[in-house]
């Protein structure tokens, strides 16, 4: 058994001339798990991945991957990781097979092993039929799968995926998800970044929410949802002019202000006891003879969890800078 975590980072700091990209990121990813780094653009996800994959040197803190220090033992780290960056780094002018064989050679397999490995990977990622075509004509999902295959040449201990489905259509996302699940099922540790919350929800065992260069919450997808209340009460006004009245009404009854989506005339609010809240609000609406298009209870999405969790931090730091 391995006595070290697949990824361990303490207090990672990275400063650029004008900004601080990371301001103390801590991570611990056990072997064989899929860990998500969830955050908006510019939150520090990519910088974290770049440090862990030895592409960027941190200004502070420590990090190790597969037990090797990313700063002082980068060569050892590179032998044990795979990286799929934001851009698909495959050669558009070489066939899928030529691409994988070339990367195999650069991973120091001999010619025969590199070719055999290329064929295995083409099979694993369902690309055998496209093996002799150039990725230029591939769909987004196929390109990504080829990119993933190239990261899997040495069957790395830890696979880093930086926004693996950004820019893909729904079919492409599903293909890539399936490939990632397959790799995870075989025991590859995966660290992925995403700003798609459903993606983190579907793929990850644990999620670190990261914003403004700090990760402040780590939990399971279910745990994250629990943190923001069990249920959401949702109201849709028939007439957008009623929004103000409805907002006041809900605030008065439930004691907290609802989230407004004015474009859709929708109000939503996190509630502890969904049924009681629904009954009370519905009764008051009919008593005041307000007209609504819809009312209901639903489980929170990760999007809401995410907004709920990051917004206070964003506001605080805005005040600090003023």
């Amino acid at each position, binding site marked *: 058994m391995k006595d070290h975590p697949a990824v361990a980072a303490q207090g990672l700091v990275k400063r650029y001339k004008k900004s601080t990209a990371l301001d103390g990121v801590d991570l611990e990813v056990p072997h064989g798990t899929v860990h998500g780094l969830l955050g908006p653009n510019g939150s520090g996800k990519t910088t974290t991945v770049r440090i862990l994959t030895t592409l960027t040197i941190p200004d502070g803190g420590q990090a190790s991957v597969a037990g090797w220090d990313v700063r002082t033992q980068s060569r050892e780290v*590179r*032998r044990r990781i795979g*990286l799929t960056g934001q851009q*698909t780094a495959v050669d558009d002018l070489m066939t899928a097979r030529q691409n994988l064989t070339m990367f195999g050679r650069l991973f*120091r397999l001999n010619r025969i092993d590199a070719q055999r490995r290329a064929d295995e990977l083409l099979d694993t990622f369902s690309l055998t039929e496209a093996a002799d075509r150039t990725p230029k004509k591939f769909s987004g999902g196929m390109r990504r799968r080829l990119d993933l295959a190239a990261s899997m040449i040495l069957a790395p201990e830890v696979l880093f995926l930086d926004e693996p489905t950004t820019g893909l259509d729904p079919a492409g996302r599903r293909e890539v998800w399936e490939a990632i699940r397959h790799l995870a099922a*075989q025991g590859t540790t995966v660290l992925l970044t995403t700003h798609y919350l459903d993606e983190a929800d579907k793929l990850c065992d644990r999620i670190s929410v990261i914003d403004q260069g700090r990760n402040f919450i780590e939990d399971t997808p279910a745990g994250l949802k629990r943190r923001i209340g069990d249920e959401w009460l949702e109201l849709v006004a028939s007439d957008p002019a009623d929004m103000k009245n409805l907002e006041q009404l809900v605030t008065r009854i439930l004691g907290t202000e609802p989230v407004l989506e004015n474009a859709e005339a929708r109000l939503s609010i996190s509630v502890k006891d969904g049924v009681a809240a629904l009954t009370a609000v519905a009764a008051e609406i009919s008593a005041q003879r307000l007209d609504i298009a819809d009312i209901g209870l639903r489980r929170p999405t990760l999007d809401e969890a995410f907004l709920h969790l990051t917004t206070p931090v964003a506001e605080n730091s805005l005040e600090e800078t003023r």
Partner: protein
Amino acid sequence: MTTLKHQTKDAHTEEKTGSRVIWGIRDCRTIVLQEFTHLLRQPSTFAWQIGFPVVMVLMFVYVFGSAMDVTGQGAGEGYVDFAMPGMFALTMALGFMDTAYAVTHNKEKGFMDRFRSMPMSSSAPVTGRAVSDVIRAGIDLVVIAGVALLIGWRSGGSLGATLAAFVLLLWLRLALIFVGIYLGLCIKNTETAGMLFAVAFPLGFISSVFTPPEMMPGWLGAVAAWNPVSSTATAIRDLFNTPGIEIMEPAYWIDGHAMAAAIIWPAVIMAVFVPLAVRQFKSLGR
């Protein structure tokens, strides 16, 4: 989907200095092969790239050449012989744009990051680029020399001198490869790389490539004469034993020392740009 076997990595956990050099060479070869797969895959792009200097040769020799009097023996007289060495030198000089574009492209596409996250030789992306671009330049020279022979250019020098001239040309190209790598690493994206023409044209044309610097206004002539491209052009004119050249007195000191300058200039360029390129490559990690 089949199951991925976890491969043993013991085979390459030990790496001694000697084998590091060998791996450096092997990785370099892999990258050179990648570059040449591109050429084979895109024959039309290659044809366009090679077509540019060929069109330039024809344009300058026939359009401008007929009005130029470089030998003092009348317009157009001996211009092919004067212009061809310049054309060779110009092709070498402008080649750094191709290098810069390729480097920027690789950076932009995430290739550089992928290579840097792999256990391959860290010098291979640079050496591979340099080797394949020098080979490319050799192919360029062969094609242009072929066209030149067709329109009546002949080397007046011995076989040895002629070969030496081509070695000097590749020497200049090699030096400028590192300028290209440095610029390619500095430049943000390939659109910006296209604007390198603004740098490349003065470098190529404010020189003795098409016009003797003596015919330019004083200060510009001095700049042109001291341009490394001019030194190589003048040196190879000498090696090709270009007729009409020997009757001209060197107007600038460096003209009289063109051979030495054609050897030293590229060395100076490399002394400056190799460290700069290495530093820029490392700073990708900052």
